[in-house]
């Protein structure tokens, strides 16, 4: 029945209204019945679902993983798309100017000047096929508006056009029949203002607000929307023409002056210089002008700006830089006369563009996957260096790596023992630094100035590392052994950086100095406290291990600590001549020494040394006291044995270890030996009294 219900409910054409309708017809009992059925079904389903989950558990996990990977990829993809969009946008803005065109009617001259860059971008965005128009440097938009083109003969309206008045030419664009995105118009033609004849057409009949453009062989007639618009067009056209001609005149005069000058210096100079007009005001070498102009007419050179655009769009950065280098090399040998300068400006603009894209490439943003990794960065860096932007490249490169390290560290899960985490942390951090260093050397070969930046960066990263390390290690209430282990791990890893020629150990020590010093002091004090504490309870009894096995275990333990002559302090198969106090002290002291030596560095040398000596001295003092004490007169031999163990077995062992790490003998061991001798003599004295 449940199956039947499930089938009904899962039918594709299942209609809840009908179903409920039919149900409600049956009355209360049926309803109750149905309720049970539904309940049973839901239970069954839940069970089935659970079963299925178990059955397909591994598949679920796999799927989940796949999904997360896919998600990551989607992120990356979306990021790439955003990038692409950005590139397209920046391309659109290439060499162009001011977007205040929408209300061009109110555009003030200065405003146009101000953001010339944007308005030509607007052109490129709205008009299809006008890139060649927008590539002329210094060209900017003065005025634009909708016009209706008319037949100059019949005065019939032909089509809607949009006219753009640039500072040196008039561009006519037709409306696109099918709009594609922001592109509204199609470039039709461009008239130089030089010889453009503008004719005001007096209103006649239906033909109102029109004006003509005469430019052989074309006669174009346009109708403005209203008299004001037409007036504006005529005025602005007139003004622009005047400005242009004034400018041209200036140039010509300057050129003439230049030629004059040239004539004075070289009388043999050719009279009719065909390029006189193109000359720039400064007294350039007219003889080279011919050369310059021809120079710029090389086909590949003319294509280069466009090729650069394409290369940047395709993210073919190497290609782009190749091109730029080629151009630079080519232009290098030529004086910067006007045509070359103009060309240069076009190239420079693209270099800027490229640099920006490359920098963006290196920028690390949170949503950006770092999986792209160092190889991608190296590529961008290499190109930036070729463009002569090594400082920026260096900066971005290091920032990128910082982000990478941060990310990697964040990937580490803090679970389990601190030591384990710290070990992994050190592994990740220092190997990242090493990797960065290697990468850096590959990316910035011969750029020695950048290496100091790397060192500074490494130090900063180390600082951050120590901060993380500190919170995990110093601020937690872990045992000193653990802390010492961690510090040792960090110092050891840090030392490995010298593989890439980076010595940061001193910096690490400096950064951890305060914490470590505090810990050494604290732990040393604890030990001394413990000695006193144990001393108060010392009964001077040999330890009975009950059986040989336990004694063997004890011997092994001591052997492990490095006390190889322990057997000379055991007797009768189950006894040792050492007290519980001595054994405990020895164990604690040995561990303490081991730990201390792990954190040993020159700045803590003295603290560690004095801690070593102080603790042992405290213990010896306790023994001395015991010898003098009335309570333990019978135990003198036993006490001396314990003292002997400390001075002749433990002390040399500690000294050996100390020397191995610090390179120095443990000082003040003499005092301890003195103390031992004192104990011996005291014991003899007291023994003698007995005798």
């Amino acid at each position: 029945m449940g199956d039947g219900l499930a089938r009904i409910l899962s039918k594709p054409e299942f209609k809840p209204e009908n179903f409920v309708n039919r149900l409600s017809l049956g009355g209360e009992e049926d309803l109750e019945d149905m309720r049970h059925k539904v309940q049973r079904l839901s239970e069954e389903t839940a069970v089935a679902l659970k079963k299925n989950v178990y059955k397909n558990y591994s598949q679920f996990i796999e799927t989940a993983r796949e999904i997360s990977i896919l998600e990551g990829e989607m992120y990356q993809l979306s990021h790439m798309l955003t990038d692409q969009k950005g590139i397209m946008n920046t391309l659109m803005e290439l060499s162009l100017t001011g977007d205040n065109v929408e209300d061009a009617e109110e555009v003030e001259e200065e405003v146009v000047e101000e953001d010339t860059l944007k308005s030509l971008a607007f052109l490129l965005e709205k008009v299809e096929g006008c890139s060649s128009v927008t590539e002329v440097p210094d060209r900017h938009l003065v005025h634009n508006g909708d016009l209706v083109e008319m037949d100059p003969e019949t005065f019939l309206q032909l089509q809607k056009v949009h006219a753009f008045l640039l500072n040196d030419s008039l561009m006519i664009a037709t409306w696109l029949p099918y709009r594609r995105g922001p592109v509204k118009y199609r470039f039709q033609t461009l008239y130089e203002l030089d010889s453009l004849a503008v004719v005001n057409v007096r209103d006649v009949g239906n033909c109102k607000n029109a004006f003509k453009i005469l430019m052989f062989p074309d006669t174009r007639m346009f109708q403005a929307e209203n008299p004001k618009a037409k007036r504006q067009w005529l005025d602005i056209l007139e003004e622009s023409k005047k400005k242009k001609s004034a400018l041209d005149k200036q140039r010509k005069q300057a050129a003439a002056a230049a030629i004059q000058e040239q004539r004075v210096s070289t009388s043999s100079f050719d009279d009719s210089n065909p390029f006189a007009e193109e000359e720039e005001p400064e007294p350039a070498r007219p003889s080279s002008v011919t050369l310059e102009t021809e120079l710029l007419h090389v086909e590949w050179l003319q294509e280069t700006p466009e090729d650069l655009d394409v290369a940047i769009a395709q993210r073919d950065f190497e290609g782009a830089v190749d091109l730029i280098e080629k151009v630079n090399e080519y232009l290098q040998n030529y004086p910067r006369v006007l045509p070359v300068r103009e060309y240069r400006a076009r190239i420079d603009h693209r270099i800027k563009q490229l640099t920006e894209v490359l920098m963006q490439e290196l920028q690390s943003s949170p949503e950006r996957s770092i999986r792209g990794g160092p190889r991608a960065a190296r590529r961008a860096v290499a190109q930036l260096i070729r463009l002569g932007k090594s400082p920026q490249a260096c900066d971005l490169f290091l920032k990128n790596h910082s982000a990478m390290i941060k990310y990697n560290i964040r990937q580490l899960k803090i679970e389990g023992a601190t030591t384990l985490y710290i070990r992994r942390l050190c592994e990740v951090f220092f190997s990242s630094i090493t990797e960065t260093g290697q990468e850096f050397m590959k990316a910035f070969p011969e750029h020695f100035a950048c290496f100091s930046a790397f060192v500074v960066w490494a130090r900063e990263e180390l600082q951050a590392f120590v901060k993380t390390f500190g919170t995990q290690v110093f601020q937690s209430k872990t045992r000193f052994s653990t802390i010492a282990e961690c510090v040792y791990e960090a110092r050891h890893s840090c030392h490995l950086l010298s593989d890439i020629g980076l010595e940061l150990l001193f910096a690490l020590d400096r950064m951890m100095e305060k914490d470590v010093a505090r810990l050494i002091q604290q732990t040393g004090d604890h030990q001394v406290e413990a000695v006193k504490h144990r001393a108060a309870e010392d009964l001077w009894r040999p330890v009975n291990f009950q059986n040989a096995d336990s004694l063997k275990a004890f011997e092994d333990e001591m052997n492990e600590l490095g006390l190889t002559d322990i057997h000379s302090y055991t007797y009768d198969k189950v006894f040792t001549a050492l007290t519980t106090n001595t054994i405990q002290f020895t164990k604690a002291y040995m561990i303490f020494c081991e730990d201390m030596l792990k954190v040993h560095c020159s700045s803590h040398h003295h603290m560690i040394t004095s801690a070593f000596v102080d603790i042992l001295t405290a213990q010896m003092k306790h023994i001395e006291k015991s010898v003098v004490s009335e309570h333990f007169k019978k135990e003198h031999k036993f006490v001396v044995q314990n003292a002997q163990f400390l001075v002749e077995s433990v002390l040399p062992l500690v000294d050996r270890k100390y020397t191995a790490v610090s390179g120095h003998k443990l000082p003040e061991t003499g005092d301890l030996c003195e103390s031992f001798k004192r104990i011996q003599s005291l014991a003899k004295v007291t023994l003698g009294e007995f005798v």
Partner: protein
Amino acid sequence: MFSCLNLRRRLRGGRQGSSSASWDAMSKPKTQAPAVIHKVIMVGSGGVGKSALTLQFMYDEFVEDYEPTKADSYRKKVQLDAEEVQIDILDTAGQEDYAAIRDNYFRCGEGFLCVFSITEQESFQSTSEFREQILRVKNDENIPFLLVGNKMDLEERRQVTVEEAQARAQEWNVSYVETSAKTRANVDKVFYDLMREIRAQKVAAAKPDNDKKGKKKKSGRKCVIL
């Protein structure tokens, strides 16, 4: 990568666009056969009364105030010997400095009224410059052309004699007419005379056997239609 293709196309588009533009201009639809239009161009130095003549002809009014013209175009339906035609007058700027721009004006004219002021010798002298330029641009010795001496009402300030002017007209093989924009004397005459000349020229050009003139005609603005 599709974006790159588009991009390149767009980048290259600029160059192709400009070449196709002239095609657009040529293949413009000729919707209906327009009434005959005679295109007259007023030339002459500044202040000789070109606009005054035009306005008098167009609107029967005389404007006393002088304001330099930039370039105005007028059109009017007129009855030319029982035939309805349109006259298109381009009133040019006497002050136009740029020969290249003047060329563009002249190219679209079918007949010229070359105006000078009889009260100003200089304006008479410069008529030869205008004539020269027109001939150069139109490349036609027989282009309809009238030499017009304006301001004949100001007889007392005359600097250019009738003989002098007529001699020049003869030399150029054109007619000389004296007018007054103020009194409207001969205003209609110069325009109608010129239109008749233009009409005659057009008729001659239409005759296929008149090879020479036809060619010349074609060198004029009609070549656009080719």
